């Protein structure tokens, strides 16, 4: 009971601040206090074991919750800088706190219904953040975000209903639903809906278009939390809802392998499209796709093998991504103010951590996912993805350097947030690494394994620098353009419905329909 209350406290502060927005006296203070809102969550995450929260918040969830809360604090400190005046402050604060509460909630929600609620909160409220600038571009991105977000909600609702239907005593606890899943008569359908719903959230191809659009159109602190923290709602969903259970091993093999394949396709796809982009934020958004694709590969292989170790490995990898991606986005803000070699250099190191650069936190993250990936084709391809990551990150640093100009002072909040998050990205994975992972990573053999893909990636990056102008120009959101074809199709469907409906609303047609209904119904009732 106490444990449940402690978990609930993580949401209490954001929601209390949200309520404070309704009071005219406090309204002006709330936007300045955004950085404080995630503090209880950070405390709960750090002290989960001593507080006895382990049964409700497993180790993987706790570390991911901590990282997410930390990034929200850093971004919250920078949030006031995007305000244009007093009028939009309460609105930004409102959407911010709702998104934050939902984002923290996905880690602590214990039953299906509250999970669905907080998941909808984080997905849908972020719309208000994406369109904050009110530009046409932001609105278009917001629309894509909301449309795919709702599609994800719909897929998950079906998945949850199916999962709950299999629980014998009608319990709605996530734990019970996961336990009942392997024996469910609707097992495959449930898994497909869950994988598709959460897969959409983490941007798996082909449901990824909203990520590049939204993450680049949003204001900077919003991009930081969207790419760093909000996307992790999908990761934690996968980790909490999938049965990584030996009983599933043979049953889940096909689905798991399929999911891992989609993940790998996404990992490479993100790199290939990302290197054609020139906006640094868009490049980072594609890097998020690529990284989440790798997480999906780990999850898929874990599901296929029924390996519960995949949960911890994927969590640790995601923790590193939260911090590293946060630091990279924050660097975009710094570079916009002033060209600084320190910023560019540290950004390159943190960014290459995503490729597993030796001695960075990323190296540990990369080495722990090797276990669940196994040693087949998928593992090899996942390892080679580091080459692509290097290429993409160096492309990003190049774009950042090209855009960096001016000699304005870097905002203090932004600078402190960036330093803190970047340092955390380098250090935290070492502290969280399980067992002998650190010792294993520090051998010369491991160093070499980590270093050579980066070398190849660097050579490719030089080539890209040279010949990059020959690459085709891919629009931001790549296949979003083909979305217009889909939109046209939907428009035609809508027009056809409208014509039919107008016809049915004509008086004689409606009168005849009424008589026809009476007749057909009597025939149908008589057909026994």
């Amino acid at each position, binding site marked *: 009971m106490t444990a449940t209350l402690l978990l609930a406290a993580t949401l209490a502060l954001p929601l209390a601040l949200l309520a404070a927005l309704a009071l005219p006296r406090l309204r002006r203070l709330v936007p300045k206090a955004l950085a404080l809102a995630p503090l209880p969550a950070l405390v709960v995450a750090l002290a989960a074991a001593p507080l006895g929260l382990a049964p409700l918040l497993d180790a993987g969830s706790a570390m991911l919750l901590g990282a997410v809360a930390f990034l929200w604090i850093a971004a919250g400190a920078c949030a006031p800088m995007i305000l244009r005046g007093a009028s939009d402050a309460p609105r930004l604060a409102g959407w911010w706190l709702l998104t934050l509460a939902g984002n923290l909630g996905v880690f602590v929600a214990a039953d299906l219904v509250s999970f669905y609620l907080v998941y909808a909160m984080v997905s849908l409220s972020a719309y208000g953040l994406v369109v904050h600038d009110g530009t046409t571009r932001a609105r278009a991105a917001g629309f894509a975000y909301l449309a795919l977000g709702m599609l994800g909600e719909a897929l998950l609702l079906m998945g949850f209903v199916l999962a709950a239907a299999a629980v014998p005593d009608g319990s709605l606890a996530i734990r019970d639903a996961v336990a009942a899943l392997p024996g469910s008569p609707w097992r495959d359908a449930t898994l497909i809906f869950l994988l598709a719903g959460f897969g959409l959230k983490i941007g798996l191809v082909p449901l990824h278009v909203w990520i590049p659009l939204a993450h680049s159109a949003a204001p900077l602190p919003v991009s930081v939390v969207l790419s760093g923290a909000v996307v992790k709602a999908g990761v934690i969903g996968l980790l909490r809802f999938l049965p990584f259970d030996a009983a599933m091993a043979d049953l889940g093999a096909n689905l798991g392998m399929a999911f891992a394949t989609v993940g790998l396709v996404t990992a490479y796809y993100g790199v290939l499209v990302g290197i054609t982009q020139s906006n640094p934020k868009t490049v980072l958004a594609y890097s998020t796709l690529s990284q989440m694709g790798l997480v999906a590969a780990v999850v898929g292989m874990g599901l296929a093998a029924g390996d519960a170790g995949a949960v911890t490995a994927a969590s640790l990898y995601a923790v590193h991504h939260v911090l590293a991606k946060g630091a990279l986005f924050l660097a975009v803000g710094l570079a916009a103010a002033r060209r600084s070699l320190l910023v560019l250099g540290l950004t390159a190191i943190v960014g290459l951590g995503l490729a597993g650069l030796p001695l960075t936190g990323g190296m540990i993250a990369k080495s722990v996912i090797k276990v669940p990936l196994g040693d087949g084709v998928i593992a090899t391809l996942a390892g080679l993805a580091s080459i692509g990551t290097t290429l993409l990150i160096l492309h990003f640093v190049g774009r950042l350097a090209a855009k960096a100009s001016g000699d304005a002072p870097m905002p203090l909040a932004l600078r402190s947030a960036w330093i803190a998050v970047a340092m955390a990205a380098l250090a935290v994975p070492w502290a969280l690494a399980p067992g002998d992972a650190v010792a294993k990573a520090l051998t010369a053999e491991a160093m070499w394994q980590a270093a050579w893909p980066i070398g190849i990636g660097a050579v490719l990056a030089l080539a890209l620098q040279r010949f990059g102008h020959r690459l085709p120009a891919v629009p931001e959101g790549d296949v979003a353009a083909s979305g217009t074809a889909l939109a046209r199709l939907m428009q035609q469907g809508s027009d056809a419905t409208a014509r039919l409906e107008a016809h049915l609303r004509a008086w004689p047609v409606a009168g*005849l329909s009424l*008589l026809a209904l009476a007749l057909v119904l009597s025939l149908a009732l008589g057909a026994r």
Partner: protein
Amino acid sequence: MTMTVFGLCGAALVGIGLYGLIVQAQPLRRILAFNLLGGGVFLLFGVIARRGAVEGLGSDPVPQAMVITGIVVAFSATALAISLVVRLKETGRGDDEGSA
């Protein structure tokens, strides 16, 4: 025999009423058609009451009570509809979107 004639008359009235309701475009004609339709249904109620009488229940008073109530309801409906038509005439038909 009379019963069958009454029943057929009732059915015919229902048919004419429904036809009129569907094909007529003018509100007043539709209201008249509704009254024919209602008349047909009341006639059927009468047949049913009569049939109860044939089966030795005396004259079944319940359908008759229903018919009386039904006539009152139909009368009110007609009055309401007519008053709407009158108001519409007074207001002047604005746009002719979807004749009532």
